[in-house]
């Protein structure tokens, strides 16, 4: 009996998943975004295969080589390092930071949102006040202030951006839980003797995941932009690490002489952010049918 219902449930879920997948694939921009992102993921996974040079290899005899120079498709920077190779290795940093940041933020936010929506009362008031306090800071300002105090490093970037980004997930999950809490299936779980933790994580959480996934895709785009912004201000990943924002920071001193030092890192940031935004849009249409008519 239980096996049968379980089987039915899996089938229903997979059917719903298939439908979502079909909607997603039919969205050409979402597909384009996925292909672009896969390209970046490939570069990030096998930079030593893709990149023509070592990203740290200086060639002091050949600085500021223009794009299209022999052996340097996108030219070289002020130390004669190959810009294309640095961009390829940089994708590894941006994608990793983006993933970790979203992981930290979504975990904290979702947990607090679940607790806040499920228990209500004092827990809810405390969590929501905390959310409001965090929302009161212009996001980048708080990140910059904490980075300035903690000192720049890639680990601090991940930690700070993760800790600053969680409120959006908390708010999202809380509002979802508030309406789910009243559903008959929760009542049924309780009648069957399920504990609070089981109801929250086993039954409510899966029902909150689609908006969290959509937000996470967009959030990863935001995290990559913020990482680059911190790098640009000299507060993020430190040189000589080939982080895109840090590369822009180094390039801005040679703006007039070698515009290509800032052009290409910017294009790389834009493309990866664009691909994640396309994917996020596609996911929203696929997972949240109520919003589809707006397209």
């Amino acid at each position, binding site marked *: 009996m239980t096996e049968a219902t379980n089987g039915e449930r899996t089938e229903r879920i997979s059917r719903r998943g298939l439908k979502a997948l079909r909607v997603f694939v039919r969205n050409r921009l979402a597909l384009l975004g996925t292909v672009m992102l896969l390209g970046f993921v490939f570069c990030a996974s096998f930079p030593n295969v893709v990149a023509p040079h070592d990203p740290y290899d200086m060639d002091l005899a050949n600085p500021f080589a223009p794009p299209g120079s022999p052996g340097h498709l996108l030219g070289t920077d002020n130390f004669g390092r190959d810009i294309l190779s640095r961009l390829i290795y940089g994708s590894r940093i941006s994608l990793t930071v983006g993933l970790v940041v979203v992981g930290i933020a979504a975990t904290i936010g979702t947990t607090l949102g679940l607790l806040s929506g499920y228990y209500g009362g004092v827990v809810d008031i405390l969590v929501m*006040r905390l959310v409001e306090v965090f929302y009161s800071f212009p996001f980048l300002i*708080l990140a910059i202030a904490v980075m300035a105090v903690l000192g720049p490093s890639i680990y601090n970037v991940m930690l700070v951006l993760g800790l600053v980004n969680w409120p959006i997930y908390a708010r999202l999950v809380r509002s979802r839980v508030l309406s789910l809490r009243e559903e008959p299936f929760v009542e049924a779980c309780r009648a069957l003797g399920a504990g609070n933790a089981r109801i929250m994580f086993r039954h409510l959480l899966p029902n909150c995941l689609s908006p969290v996934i959509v937000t996470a895709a967009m959030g990863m785009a935001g995290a990559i932009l913020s990482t680059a912004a911190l790098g640009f*201000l000299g507060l993020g990943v430190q040189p000589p690490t080939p982080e895109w924002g840090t590369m822009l920071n180094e390039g801005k001193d040679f703006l007039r002489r070698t515009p290509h030092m800032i*052009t290409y890192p910017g294009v790389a940031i*834009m493309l990866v952010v664009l691909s994640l935004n396309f994917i996020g849009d596609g996911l929203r249409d696929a997972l949240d049918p109520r919003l589809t008519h707006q397209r």
Partner: protein
Amino acid sequence: MSAYLIRRLLISIPVVLGVTFIVFALVSLAPGDPINLLLASEKVTPEMAERVREYYGLDKPWYSQYATYLGHLLRGDMGYSITTRTPVSQSIKRCLPNTLQLTAASMIVALLIAIPVGVLSATHRNSFLDYVSLTGSMLGVSMPNFWLGLLLLLLLGLQFKVLPIWGIGRLSRGLWDVISHLIMPSLTLGTSLAGLLTRLTRSSVLEVLSQDYISTARAKGLAEWAVRYRHALRNAIIPVLTAAGLQFGALLGGAVIVETIFAWPGMGRLAYGAIQQRDLPMIQGTTLVFAICFIAVTLLVDVLYVFIDPRIRYD
């Protein structure tokens, strides 16, 4: 209305307290002895250390330190800059109007782009124009603003030399001086918001156009322009303005970057300079004022809401 206003103000109090606490806690996050941090790396004489300890109440427990900090704040005292030895509040008072000028201009730029383009995009749904505007707004949202700023600087400032590349204009040198200095920074800061708001305007207009009262307006024979601009736009604009207000924080955050690129003498550049010097009191002061500005704007949006949308009644 006034009851609502008072309640809304009261709710802001715990939020402001929370914000001050986080800003206060920044000191304890910093590695090292706070006294050395607060006096920078210069030689610290015992008397100086003693004075700092007394001023901040550093020999007392943290809650007492926090109370001292709040007491200073209430008197408008945000401490002294480590580098210039002048009151933090003085520098902020000097820079804040410039930042507000820049963010206001960026907001205007964003709305001037977003509303017409979004409306056209919605009324010409699925046309070539709609496609271009959607792609454009997506690019605007995805473009890092520091990159856009550098490109504008390179192109309009250095290559064609049509716009001044740094600083703020003065009204005494004519209106064009003010505007010409504003164009590149406000475009840089406003583009991503413009992209966001364009998409929002489009979907908001589309939603309103599908409402029953629009069909009614059409059915009673109103001209299409009257339906669109008198009936639809006024209702569609409300969520756009709300979102614009809530995005003000993003503009403030972006100001740090844009002001750094264009040497705009505002709070962002002040904060950036403070970070370079590890000027902790200045970092605290600017962070706090940025947050307070944001809270004030959110409050303002909430209140303005009542005037824009007559359907909303707070009681």
